[in-house]
């Protein structure tokens, strides 16, 4: 390792032994420690996503420290991955595109509804995205940590959450207006900032084949999040049966009350939470198996949600 770089590592991270640092790579194809155009990063660890109770390591995403400034960053390295994603019974070919994410980072520069970062090319011309850390928690964790029964949650917390979710939908509409798609809209891809409480979108690198409805997948993702925040979680047939056995409550449910894509996920939440008003429940039902009318654009959904928020407030 270069002596100057090693001195910087020692001053910033004195507990690290030289053998743990290895070489400095300017070509990130072989990644461990990285130098990009005069900036040096020391890798602290690989990032991972936690989904369905499982840790999913992302070995191409590195938490690191800038040796010059001491700041923490996330480095995303090039990883051209193709895989089949199953959404309910529908299989979709999915691709990981560093070019797409880099383009969107440029588009949303200084727009704090999105993660921020810059792209640098390594000596092998790979696009390395240097992302600012967002201090906070994912939206699903924020909702799950609210310690209240649903009625209290709905009346005391939900209007504020819906207002912020509307802001997040407006951010997605902005991408669509510029011909871009988020591509991987999930409740753990909204990061809620500790300091401000702001909702910020992360991870823009999923790309798909073009279709007649280019924004359908994004809309589907937004519908899922709306369902999650309105229900204070997901309500599956399994949970409903368990709850009915516990409380002796009888609720008549039909296949049309469930999700168009996930037939075990209840969408008609008013059937179990009767204080959810009709006007809001109607928006949810647009994502149910019983619907005949789909939202074509995020703006259509936003018009309905803004009215809901006005009436709830």
């Amino acid at each position: 390792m270069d002596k100057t770089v090693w001195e910087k590592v020692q001053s910033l991270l004195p507990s690290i032994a030289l053998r743990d640092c290895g070489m400095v790579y300017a070509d990130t194809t072989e990644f461990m420690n990285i130098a990009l155009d005069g900036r040096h990063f020391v890798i602290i660890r690989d990032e991972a996503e936690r989904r369905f109770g499982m840790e999913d390591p992302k070995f191409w995403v590195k938490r690191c420290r800038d040796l010059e400034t001491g700041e923490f960053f996330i480095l995303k390295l090039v990883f051209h991955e193709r895989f089949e994603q199953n959404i309910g019974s529908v299989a979709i070919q999915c691709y990981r595109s560093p070019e797409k994410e880099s383009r969107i980072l440029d588009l949303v520069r200084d727009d704090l509804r999105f993660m921020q970062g810059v792209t640098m090319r390594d000596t092998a011309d790979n696009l390395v995205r240097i992302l600012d850390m967002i201090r906070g928690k994912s939206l699903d964790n924020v909702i799950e940590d609210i310690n209240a029964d649903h009625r209290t949650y709905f009346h005391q917390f939900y209007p504020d959450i819906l207002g912020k979710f509307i802001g997040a939908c407006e951010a997605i509409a902005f991408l669509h207006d510029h011909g871009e798609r988020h591509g991987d809209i999930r409740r753990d891809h909204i990061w809620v900032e500790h300091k401000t409480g702001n909702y910020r979108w992360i991870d823009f690198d999923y790309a798909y084949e073009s279709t007649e409805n280019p924004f359908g997948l994004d809309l589907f993702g937004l519908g899922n999040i709306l369902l999650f925040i309105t229900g204070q979680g997901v309500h599956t047939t399994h949970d409903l049966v368990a709850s009915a056995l516990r409380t002796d409550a009888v609720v008549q449910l039909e296949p049309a009350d469930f999700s168009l894509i996930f037939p075990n996920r209840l969408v008609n939440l008013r059937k179990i939470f009767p204080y959810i008003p009709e006007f809001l429940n109607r928006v949810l039902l647009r994502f149910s198996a019983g619907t005949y009318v789909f939202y074509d654009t995020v703006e259509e959904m936003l018009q309905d949600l803004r009215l809901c928020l006005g009436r709830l407030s």
Partner: protein
Amino acid sequence: MHFKKILVAVDASENSARAVEYVGIMVGDTPGFEITLLHVERYPERDIFPDDTSWQDACREEGQNIRTFFSQAKAMLENKGVSPDIISIEYVKTSGGGTQRGSKGLGVAQHILKMHRDGGFGTVVVGRRGVSKAEEFLFGSVTTKIIHNAKDCTVWVVE
């Protein structure tokens, strides 16, 4: 509207081949018909390829597929007795000859409906493979959009 002026929207799929065959059977050598085979270009997204070379190869392959389809479709119509004089071919470019780099989605149905309006076609024909409600929600459907939005014409959906 001139109902004997027929617009057949095609891609290089088997569904389109069925639609062309059906039109051939219906029209045959009956006088007064005009048939236009229309293809609206939709190149693969650049984002799903690791580099320009592999993407351009895929675009070229798509272009070749539709050229082959057009000649087979013409031959199929002529085999059914349709005169070559009443068959024309339209190729609508929508993405600047394969230079589109973004994930912009261009509505094929929109282009078909514009051609129908501008060209005064009285009949629009599309092939359909049949998609589930879930697929229609996620991906959209050219056929459904045409059925919902076409005005002053007859729509033939060949399944």
